């Protein structure tokens, strides 16, 4: 009975959030350059990306259109690898001067003591570091023999700061699924407090590499691992917001599945395009900062994100969980949008 009312309340809450659509979280795809060449990269970044970094002033002009900013508004620097930008500290300082807080997602390769100090000085308040396994499996996925050592050092530095709200993310794949208990022990030994697990979806470079995609059984095992580990209360482990996981919903996250793309989350992509999360198909782009006012676009467009009835098609059309799932994550709709790319709930049921 309690679960019934809780779910009903949560659905109401989600609808209400879509109506209000307060912009809390703005990704800035500040570079497409990357120092690694990961096997699973969804955006096909490279050292020699053909896209130039977006000039800081261009982003700041767009940021200034957001007025008033919500209480917990923040800018999340992403890429590519944000640390490839030489002016990353200046970017952070200017974002603070323009009334926003900021954070960053990094592979940790260039995150040394000096960079750590400079980023803290520039007002960085949160950080996510990717770690995709112990040394062998991390280096395999990241395609670089030194990447684990560098990420390990970055984790130590991040952990040394009491000011940073920091977590580790792991892309779970067939090579590291058996390692999860070992990664857990490693993270505990590093005093890491928060750990988020993802799976890899078959897009970008991962589309043609079956080793990266979990079998349905492995996926269910991963959720079981998260569920069991959460009960230990030794680390804040959770499954990411990538998809609806049915009977595991209350066991693998702090709250139910809610894809906030376009509801609370927006992004400015490398070419100025305005969208929601950067990993969402480019066909969902809503405008461009070089021709549109970012905040006007946020307030007046994004209908496909805020009313997801259109996702009730393909296998979602007759799904009994649709009311709670609402078409899964928006990043799972591509091309003709006739069917969802991955149904996490189906994986559990198989």
């Amino acid at each position, binding site marked *: 009975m309690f679960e019934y009312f809780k779910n009903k309340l949560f659905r109401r*809450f989600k609808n*209400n959030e879509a109506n209000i659509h307060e912009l809390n979280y703005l990704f800035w795809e500040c570079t497409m350059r990357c120092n690694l060449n990961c096997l699973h990269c969804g955006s096909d970044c490279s050292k020699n990306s053909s896209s130039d970094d977006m000039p800081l002033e261009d982003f700041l002009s767009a940021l200034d259109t957001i007025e008033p900013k919500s209480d917990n508004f923040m800018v999340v620097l992403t890429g590519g690898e944000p640390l490839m930008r030489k002016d990353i500290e200046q970017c952070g300082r200017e974002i603070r001067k323009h009334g926003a807080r900021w954070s960053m997602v990094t592979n940790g390769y260039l995150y040394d003591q000096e960079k750590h*100090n400079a980023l*803290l*000085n520039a007002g960085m308040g949160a950080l996510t570091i990717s770690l995709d396994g112990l040394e062998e499996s991390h280096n395999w996925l990241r395609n670089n023999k030194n990447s684990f050592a560098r990420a390990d050092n970055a984790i130590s530095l991040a952990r040394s700061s009491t000011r940073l709200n920091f977590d580790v993310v792991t892309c779970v794949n067939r090579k590291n699924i058996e390692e999860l208990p070992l990664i857990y022990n490693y993270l505990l030994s590093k005093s890491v407090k928060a750990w988020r697990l993802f799976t890899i979806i078959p897009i970008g470079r991962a589309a043609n590499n079956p080793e990266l995609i979990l079998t349905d059984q492995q996926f269910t095992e991963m959720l079981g691992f998260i569920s069991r580990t959460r009960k230990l209360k030794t680390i804040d482990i959770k499954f990411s917001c990538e998809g609806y996981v049915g009977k595991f919903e209350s066991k693998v996250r*702090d709250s139910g599945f809610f894809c906030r793309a376009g509801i609370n989350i927006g992004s400015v992509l490398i070419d100025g395009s305005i969208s929601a999360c950067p990993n969402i198909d480019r066909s969902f782009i809503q405008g461009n900062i070089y021709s549109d006012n970012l905040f006007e676009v946020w307030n007046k467009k994004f209908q496909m994100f805020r009313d997801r009835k259109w996702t009730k098609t393909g296998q979602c059309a007759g799904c009994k969980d649709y009311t709670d799932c609402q078409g899964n994550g928006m990043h799972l709709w591509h091309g003709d949008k006739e069917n969802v790319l991955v149904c996490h709930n189906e994986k559990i049921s198989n």
Partner: protein
Amino acid sequence: MISNWIRNLLRGLSVTSMVFVFQACYGTPQDMKYDMYIEGVVKARATGDPIQGIRVSLTETDQYEFTDDRGVFSFYTDIATSYPILFEDEDGGQNGAFMTRDTVLDPENYTIFFEIALDRE
């Protein structure tokens, strides 16, 4: 208006309180806003000229910054009850030679601006 009222109502219900602290797919955790901004100018006591290249350290953390050509330094750091700060001339005589000095700042709000003078060696 009604939507905001409902939102606040839901905020008060513990069953959904966690949903106000969220992370995007492959985004970061929320910034918990636990910081203070400190900015200052380092000048030569005798002349009042700004000094470039002074290392300014927050001694209770690992954070440091060097003054620029206007003698200015700034950083964000953890909220604390006081801030012991050390000023050291590490570039020898390049911008003049100055004696090390320390001070303790007591914050009154979330931003501190101050000026400090160093003596020549």
